[in-house]
């Protein structure tokens, strides 16, 4: 594989679960040394994409190459070059940290002295060398995540794949994890691809691929994506949102959206717009908020829907209610 080839090259990848289309012609690339995030709500296909790239499933159509190898034709070659950190812990709780890493090493053909040294060095790097001999079931969520990252890096893969790295962690542990990941990129030259539905986490990426319902809706750096929205986003709470929205459209033009009982307007002159708005519709507005566009606004701009479906919040794992459980 030549030096400039992308580490990940996805070309019109498709997949379905029975009749439901999970991936609908997804294409994108990841260059060496990048940190790329796959951002999307639940059901957007990012989990399916993750499973396809980590060779857990065989996609129905299209192609994906990781480290230059096709995920369907040469899965073992792909597996050699990737390290995977799953959303659910993939450690054996009844084994110690060291035992878990030893088993992992054996799976990659590592053994004996060199393996032991590597384990010691990795556990040291994640700051867990004193707990190497403790059972994993005694570890906190953040510690488990650290062992998982150590485990994924054991065989020095070129690409690290993470599924919702911040999920289930408190903000401190999440920060810790991200410091570790950035360090990995700086000191070890790893390429990182992760999935997320959290805006803060997405901001840590060099580039984002935004997914919705199995399709790529936008690609770019977080700032590029935000500037696509332009200016500011004005959020208006009003008793009769629909009417207000059409009145705003009539009076000021543009494409106001109504979501969850609030009106959203994108305006280049966001802040200056507020007094005009309030003067134009006296008494009808309950509150106005203006802000620079967030990634959620970016998502809304492209899809017309919210990134959060109202069941999730920043600090907890998404709650899947039965109707919303469409499989990941």
């Amino acid at each position, binding site marked *: 594989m030549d030096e400039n080839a992308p580490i990940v090259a996805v070309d019109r990848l498709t*997949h379905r*679960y*029975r009749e439901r289309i999970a991936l609908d012609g997804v294409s994108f690339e990841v260059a060496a040394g990048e940190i790329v995030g796959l951002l999307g709500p639940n059901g957007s296909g990012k989990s399916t994409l993750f499973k396809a790239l*980590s*060779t*857990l*499933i*065989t*996609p*129905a159509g299209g192609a994906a190459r990781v480290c230059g190898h096709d995920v369907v034709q*040469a899965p*073992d*070659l792909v*597996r*050699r*070059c*990737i390290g*995977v950190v*799953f959303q*659910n*812990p*993939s*450690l*054996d709780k*009844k*084994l110690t940290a060291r*035992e878990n890493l*030893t*088993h*992992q090493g*054996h*799976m*990659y*053909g590592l*053994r004996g002295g060199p393996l032991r040294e590597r384990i010691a060095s990795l556990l040291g790097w994640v700051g867990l060398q004193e707990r190497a001999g403790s*059972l994993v079931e005694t570890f906190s969520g953040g510690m488990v995540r650290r062992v998982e990252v150590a*485990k994924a890096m054991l*065989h*020095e*893969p*070129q690409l690290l794949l993470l599924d919702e790295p911040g999920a289930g962690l408190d903000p401190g542990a999440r920060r810790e994890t991200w410091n570790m990941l950035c360090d990995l990129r700086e*000191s*070890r*030259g*790893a390429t990182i691809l992760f999935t997320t539905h959290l805006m803060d986490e997405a901001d840590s990426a060099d580039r984002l691929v935004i997914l919705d319902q199995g399709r790529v809706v936008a690609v770019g750096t977080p700032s590029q994506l935000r500037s696509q929205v332009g200016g500011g986003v004005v959020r208006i709470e009003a008793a009769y949102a629909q009417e207000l929205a059409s009145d705003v459209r009539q009076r000021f033009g543009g494409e106001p959206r109504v979501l969850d009982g609030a009106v959203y307007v994108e305006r280049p002159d966001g802040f200056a717009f507020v007094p005009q708005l309030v003067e134009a519709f006296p008494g009808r507005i309950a509150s106005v908020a203006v802000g620079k566009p967030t990634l959620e606004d970016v998502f809304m701009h492209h899809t017309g829907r919210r990134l959060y479906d109202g069941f999730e919040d920043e600090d907890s794992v998404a709650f899947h209610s039965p109707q919303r459980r469409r*499989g*990941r």
Partner: protein
Amino acid sequence: MQAAHVTDAKATASPLMLAAVSLAKRELVRFLRQRSRIIGALATPPIFWLFIGSGLNRSFQPAESGLGSPGSGLGEIARTGPNPQSAIRNPKSGYLAYFFPGSLVLVVLFTAIFSTISIIEDRNAGFLQGILVAPVSRTAIVLGKVLGGTVLATGQGLLFLALAPLAGIKLSVAGTLGAIVLIGLIAFALTSMGVVLAWRMDSSAGFHSIMNLLLMPMWVLSGAVFPTEGASAWLAWIVRVNPLSYGVAGVRHLLANSGTAFAGMTLATVVTLAFAGVMFLLAVAIVRLPRGNLT
């Protein structure tokens, strides 16, 4: 930093035995670290055997069979042939002795079930995820699981065998060794079968149903609980078709030196070997199937 480059020319999966042995070791370590599991696993078949065996002990009179000379355990049922008048009540034989080989096989069955039920939880949210994305051949994954289950079952079988004298069974060295080997083979077969059943399942509730509808009847109808002589014809037929029956027959022959009407030692061994082989190959085939449609 140099990444671990692998050229396209050579084989890319990790050494088979290294992975398989590592996985098997993990099964053993896990088992030994879960005390409640150990007690549950070890205690149930002996208790079963002791209570049911003692309860039915003297009521047990296999129909149309000679029980053989006193002190020989169960006697040569096959050789003496139907002879209603010689239904001797021998206090040294009886159900406790008859039920022993079947209970030994039950120990193996329980271990096989425990080994494979963990596959279901492990695969979606646990250890197995990490294994499946590693360059490990699928054969090694199956082999590791099956070897682990086999060693566990054989170990527990050995412990159960220590109770044999309680049933009046005299163990010869050759008989015991042979029984251990045969138990190992049966364990290999049943654990492989467990993999075949569990691999495509998404919930352990489904596996519990399979356990009740398939595995337990399989054991009940293997000559473990009742002999074919005296059973209704259709039941006797099922016993003969059940591969597990041949394993039980072999164990019975090795331990108590008593035969069954439908299988001698040679046939028992051959069928059990075939059972183990076929199940293992099926397990590897199932694990190798590309997964696409399951979420």
